[in-house]
């Protein structure tokens, strides 16, 4: 199994541009999550999904959108990029009803200039 795969690994955006961060997992996990990690900080939950067609906001959802059309994929959309969205983004997935033992992707480093 490849686990959780994120693309791209790096991206530079101009203010106001949009982009989609891709995330896919091949472990048949129902639960998927998007976190952001700012320098010297822990991870903050942006959005999460408990199954296909179901998404919900996390701690810092403003400026982002998600969709979950399949079990495998959970893309994160930035519509109008802002410098405050410069961060490292991690996608994760887990087996069951609580987000125990999250399996993380390798991250996407995003800079908005």
């Amino acid at each position, binding site marked *: 199994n490849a686990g*959780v795969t994120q693309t791209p690994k790096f991206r530079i955006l101009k203010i106001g541009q949009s982009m989609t961060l891709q995330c896919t997992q091949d472990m048949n996990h129902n639960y998927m999550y998007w976190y952001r990690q700012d320098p010297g900080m822990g991870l903050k939950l942006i959005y999460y999904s408990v199954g296909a067609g179901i998404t919900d906001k996390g701690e810092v959802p403003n400026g982002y959108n998600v969709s979950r059309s399949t079990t495998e994929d959970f893309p994160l959309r930035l519509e109008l990029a802002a410098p405050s969205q410069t961060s490292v983004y991690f996608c994760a997935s887990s087996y069951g009803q609580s987000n125990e033992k*999250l399996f993380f992707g*390798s991250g996407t480093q995003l800079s908005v200039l």
Partner: protein
Amino acid sequence: GESVGLHLPTLSVQEGDNSIINCAYSNSASDYFIWYKQESGKGPQFIIDIRSNMDKRQGQRVTVLLNKTVKHLSLQIAATQPGDSAVYFCAENMKAGGTSYGKLTFGQGTILTVHP
């Protein structure tokens, strides 16, 4: 709001020594705790977890201790190796609104540096 914090942002040890990384939590309703290791340029990697009905749990070279009285969590690494150098995060599972949909809250992280 509730948060998980770490006492020491950095820890330097000699190879072969034991390392102890501490974490304080404030949400008494949290019932699950987890430690992650993050190497440079990589995503967090699961190390060990513990539920609130336990005080101690051991893995390979790692032990997690939970003191619910003082809301304190620690990660002990035995015979620390250079490959253990990384950032270590603790996280707690706060059940949201009584449902089983937990949301992990991460601490700031501790940088562990192991010197040969």
